[in-house]
């Protein structure tokens, strides 16, 4: 059966443990003189990105290459999509070339599920609309885990534009599954219309929350997705919800400062704050590669359970 990674909800706690254990192994591979292993030799991984991306696409490509898989990159601007080719036709065309995994990013929620129905390859959700971004949540969880030991019992504040954020949705799912307590901090206009079923607390007062958290996770103000004025002005947003230098100075040394990038310096996070020792934003990016190697290896490299007559070789 083909395995996919479409949503954090599909993963059990055991799956998460296995992925983190694989990631540990690939972090070690990354430190080697030759940071590359032949685990996925002869496999082909395609990135199918209908939306702009720097880190996710490059990180997946690096991950695939370090596993010795072949990579193909599809970018909308130079492809037949410009001639009006549908997603389905594009997927079937790529599929006909013989591939093993597709990383999909699309502005509409649910597209990776559609692709999984049209394709026999493993599909990885690289971000779909406002809905989900599971590999980001995995690398965020892994980063927190390396600093705090585990997520269990820790308090994480996710601050900012929750409404438009697929990162927030996947992070909430992953963090709470791993036992963390999550508080969303945002003005009412930047929260989703309904939070029913979300296992989170909500606050509109960042200063009150900062005193009791272990992680401050700042989200980007997604101006390209905002079709109406949801905050009076960016300056006013920063006064209420930005991690300014003064706010950062109040945080304990153990409190992690995180951001999924790309950052709007001076809006949700002050420029100087990113240089603090407890700001782990570049570490998040660095962990993206081994986490995505783990995902690719987990999807493509682990075969079906078989009777194993080779005891103790």
């Amino acid at each position, binding site marked *: 059966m083909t395995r996919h990674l479409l949503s954090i909800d599909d993963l059990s706690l055991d799956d998460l443990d296995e992925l983190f254990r694989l990631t540990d192994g690939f972090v070690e*591979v990354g430190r080697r003189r030759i940071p590359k292993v032949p*685990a996925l030799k002869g496999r082909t991984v395609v990135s199918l990105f209908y939306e702009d991306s720097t880190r996710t696409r490059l990180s997946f490509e690096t991950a695939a290459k370090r596993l010795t898989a072949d990579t193909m990159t599809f970018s909308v601007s130079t492809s037949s999509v410009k001639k009006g080719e549908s997603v389905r036709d594009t997927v079937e065309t790529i599929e006909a070339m013989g591939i093993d995994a597709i990383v999909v990013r699309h502005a509409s929620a649910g597209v990776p599920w559609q692709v999984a129905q049209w394709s026999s390859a493993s599909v990885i959700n690289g971000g779909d609309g406002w809905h989900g971004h599971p590999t980001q949540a995995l690398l965020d969880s892994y980063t927190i885990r390396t600093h705090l030991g585990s997520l269990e019992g820790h308090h994480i504040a996710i601050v900012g534009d929750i409404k438009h954020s697929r990162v927030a949705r996947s992070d909430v799912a992953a963090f709470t599954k791993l036992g963390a307590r999550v508080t969303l901090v945002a003005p009412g206009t930047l929260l989703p219309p309904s939070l029913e079923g979300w296992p989170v607390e909500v606050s509109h007062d960042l200063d009150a929350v900062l005193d009791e958290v272990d992680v401050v996770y700042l989200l980007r103000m997604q101006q390209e997705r905002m079709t109406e004025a949801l905050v009076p002005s960016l300056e006013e947003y920063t006064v209420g919800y930005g991690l300014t230098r003064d706010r950062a100075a109040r945080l304990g040394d153990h409190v992690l400062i995180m951001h999924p990038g790309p950052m709007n310096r001076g809006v949700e996070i002050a420029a100087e704050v990113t240089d603090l020792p407890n700001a782990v934003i570049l570490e998040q990016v660095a962990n993206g590669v081994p986490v995505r190697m783990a995902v690719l290896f987990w999807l493509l490299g682990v*075969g079906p359970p078989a009777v194993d007559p080779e005891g*103790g*070789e």
Partner: protein
Amino acid sequence: MAHEIIERNQGVDDLALIGLQTGGVPLADQFADALTQIDGSDLPVGSLDVAFYRDDIGLRPVLPEAVTDIPFDLTGRTVVLVDDVLFTGRTIRAALDALTDYGRPRAVQLAVMVDRGHRELPIRPDYVGKNLPTRRDEVVNVGPDGVDLGETVK
């Protein structure tokens, strides 16, 4: 076996031991202790997991058992790979591939506690604790108390 290793290499200078996960790791530590006792000098010990180098990836579940840890430079050293049981030779083949990603050892030697036969590749050990003829479907376990031979439950 420790004496054999010293004799063959005329001492332990430039020698390093690498245990294969998981069975070879405690053995490599034991060898290192024995060599230090005989020769008096410390030598570097590492561990290696070959999961990402196996040729049966996709055929059966292959997950790393533990993280590889080689905290020294291999280039110019003689590396003794240590494993508990030598069977088809495929693990050793994978280990040789893995080693080249860490550096260029001057020579690689192989020490195993048990050679149970049934090789599928042209690989032979340099130091053997015991030759143990087996059937293919038998299971060999090497523990601190000795070697245990069992039947596969099917």
